[in-house]
């Protein structure tokens, strides 16, 4: 359990107490979850501007007797005298407290939410910078969400946690100049909205628009590939079945080489729910289980899959909280929080690019990946540049990166230091990486 017992609101603890007393302790397992949040959503689309101020308050109770269980949720403050549904389905088990290091609420959690004018200025700044990069380009839509919340979890086995969270998300849709111009979208998340840089975001959109406008497909080519963080993060997200859940052990065995290695020396995969500075940094997961760093793959060797406390094999004592709860409305579900490829702090991206004699620098994805696990193949639509002697020579689009899944894992030659995260199912992060053994083919 966390070292100091947090203060839990009276209605939350009274609800737990009352439920455990019903019919002389009929409910053997009881959990009360409460969340209070404030959020702002500011958006612009053409001439329309919208500002939404939301205050959310909700709770959820899970309880189980010997025959079945229920999940009951509602808005407002939980009522200790609430009326509860009958149990059904299967009984439920809840986690017990475990020791964990203390956690300090990060100082930037205290920063005020972005104001309406500040948020509109950010969106206008992105549009202005985009037009400076590509005259005639438009920001079709921009939406900024900035929110803060406080979570309390208490259960009949002794878990008592209370923690705050902070998250901002930005969704942008841009259009290049001209009648048949392409569109570039972006969805990113940070802990605080003030970390979004209008100039950097506009440049990223502009790069993507230029590549999509001027790029041509490659019928079929091989070489070395420098994959930027958005491409690598998308690949890691598609590889989640390999890192998360009980089925990943078998999948990892299927993709190991003859020496029993899953990947190259440069492949180290971690998940860390309390990653310092992470957008989802928290001391505990959605069931109150303490979070910590888990090494899933260590320099190419598969160590362990990411499993929740319920999924770990009997006898295994150490586990990390990884049950995520999108809101009070949702049932906790095991998944990554900050899953990432470990960066090399000494390696700059320019260094990786300069060492690329012949290959491609792939900047972004243009669609969803297809992973054929039984066939050991993957396809990912991408765009970027052809590279000759460390210099970008021609834009490339309308192509997909493809190859064997095992070749992707074994082919990671080097990684940079530019670790960045994208919001998928949890935050998935990667630095730029040089990968060999893959192919670029024209989209059919």
């Amino acid at each position, binding site marked *: 359990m966390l070292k100091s017992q947090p203060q839990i609101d009276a209605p939350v603890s009274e609800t737990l107490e009352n439920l455990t007393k019903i019919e002389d302790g009929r409910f053997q397992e009881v959990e009360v979850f409460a969340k209070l949040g404030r959020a702002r959503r500011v958006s612009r689309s053409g001439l329309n501007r919208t500002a939404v101020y939301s*205050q959310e308050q909700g709770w959820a109770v899970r309880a189980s007797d010997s025959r079945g269980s229920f999940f009951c949720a509602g808005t407002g403050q939980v009522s200790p005298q609430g009326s509860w549904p009958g149990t059904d389905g299967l009984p439920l088990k809840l986690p017990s407290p475990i020791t964990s290091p203390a956690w300090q609420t990060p100082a930037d959690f205290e920063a005020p939410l972005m104001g309406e004018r500040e948020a509109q200025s950010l969106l206008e700044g992105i549009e202005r910078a985009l037009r400076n990069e590509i005259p005639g380009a438009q920001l079709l839509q921009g939406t900024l969400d900035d929110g803060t919340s406080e979570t309390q979890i208490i259960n009949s086995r002794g878990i008592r946690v209370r923690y705050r969270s902070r998250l901002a998300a930005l969704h942008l849709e841009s259009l290049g100049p001209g009648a048949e111009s392409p569109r570039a979208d972006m969805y990113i998340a940070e802990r605080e909205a003030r970390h979004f840089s209008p100039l950097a975001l506009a440049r990223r959109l502009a790069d993507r628009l230029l590549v999509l406008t001027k790029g041509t497909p490659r019928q079929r080519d091989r070489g070395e590939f420098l994959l930027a963080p958005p491409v690598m993060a998308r690949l890691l997200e598609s590889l989640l079945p390999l890192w998360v859940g009980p089925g990943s052990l078998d999948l990892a065995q299927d993709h190991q080489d003859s020496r029993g290695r899953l990947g190259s020396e440069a492949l180290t995969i971690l998940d860390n729910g309390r990653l310092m500075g992470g957008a989802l940094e928290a001391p505990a997961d959605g069931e109150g289980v303490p979070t910590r760093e888990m090494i899933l793959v260590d320099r190419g060797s598969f160590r362990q899959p990411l499993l929740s406390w319920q999924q770990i094999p009997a006898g295994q004592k150490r586990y990390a909280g990884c049950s995520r709860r999108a809101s009070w409305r949702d049932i906790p579900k095991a998944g990554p929080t900050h899953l990432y490829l470990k960066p090399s702090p000494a390696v700059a991206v320019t260094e990786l690019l300069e060492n690329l004699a012949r290959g491609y620098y792939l900047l972004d994805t243009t669609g969803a990946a297809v992973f054929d696990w039984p066939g050991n193949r993957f396809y990912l639509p991408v765009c970027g540049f052809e590279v000759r002697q460390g210099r970008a020579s021609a834009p490339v689009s309308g192509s997909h990166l493809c190859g064997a899944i095992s070749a992707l894992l074994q082919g990671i030659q080097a990684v940079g230091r530019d670790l960045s995260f994208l919001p998928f199912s949890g935050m998935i992060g990667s630095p730029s990486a040089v990968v060999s053994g893959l192919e670029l083919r024209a989209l059919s």
Partner: protein
Amino acid sequence: MTQSAAVPFETLDTPAIARALSQLAEKPGDWADLFLERTEEIRSPAEGKPPGVQTRREEGLAVRLVRAGESWLAARDAITPKLFSEALRQVARALPAAAYPEPRMALGPWPGSPDAPELAAFSPEVHRALREKHVAFPAKISVTRHSRWLQVIGTRWSSGTEYEHFYSCTVEMPWGRFGTLLPSLEEAEVETVASHLLDYFRARQALPPEPVTGLAVLGPAAAAVLLHEAVAHALEADTLALGGSPAAALGVRLGAPGLHVLDDPSSAPAGIKRVTDDEGLAVCRRWLLRDGIVEQPLADMVWSQSSPELLPGAARRSNRHWPPAPRSSHLEVLGGPLDQEQLLAGGDGLFLSQAERGRLDSLSGEFHLFFPFGRRIRSGELAETVGPCRLEGRVGNLLEMIRGIGQQPQVAGAGWCAKGGQKLPVWATTPSLRLEEARLLPC
């Protein structure tokens, strides 16, 4: 007006709320309203998974001010005079010198503990119906009852309380997942779900068809998804605005002659039909396409203010925390002259009864429709089953490929629409459609 026996908002002091809202609308053309909602969801679990029954009850409010293309919305997760006043202050552009007193907003309590006994019987009934068809296979069936009460109060008017009540069903099978919305859980719905599951079962090992350009006949459920994506989404005012003025679409030929597509929330199945939209304005029988020509796009109040040619009444919001947006509720396609034999006549092709999902790129007009399975048409007769495939094309081209319309529209193709992050139930009543020169690719 669609009302339930227990109307939760009937005790509200509507005139006092309207007076309080009038403080916001300080400039000519300003629009201020209060959106109130209560929702209840009860979900019966699929066998073998904890927790058991899942219930959720929500209530809340949202105050909105619209002024010259700008909107401000403040939402809260309870309905109390204090929270209403707080939200009012948050959206006010200028605070009044003297505020009106807080209105009375005491709501009736929720009736008892959440309970939906009809859910428990549905799964065994579907399995029984499957056994009667001489098949049995693992199928984890989960059913949810969705209930929603809502009311909108403006400065000079108030809608009645609208009540929506329907069910959703998801089934997990070893060879795929099936989901649908159902207006009720009667015997007809049991039979419908069982028939769909049987189709999935029969197609479980079928190979995808080879790439082909030719005849494709879409059953009512697949036609509904096609028209939702290719007509309804394409004619939403906010989608049209991405390419210029939404009103410029009026009079444009989008589909083949004889194709009449409407959006009419008032003719939706019982339990879903609406008198007013989510802005409290009257819904109408809206001709999206008349004889293939765009007549009236989907618009809400904000878009109708910007283009006088656009009619409001199609505003929808998934909950109080979202501003309304123009969306389809119940799509209706008028029946045509072709019977089943005529639909399939004249050569080989594919019959596609179900569509899994559709995707429209709002700017390029590129469209993809995915089918979990289909059946070959050989010499006008239905033949063997084929596996998953997809239909590709541009919206205009696809709609012009519609060369025949079936005689009997059916309630079909209901599902969840998730455009822009808002999850909304959508319904349709359509006949089968005959497409010629359709490009179908294996998945």
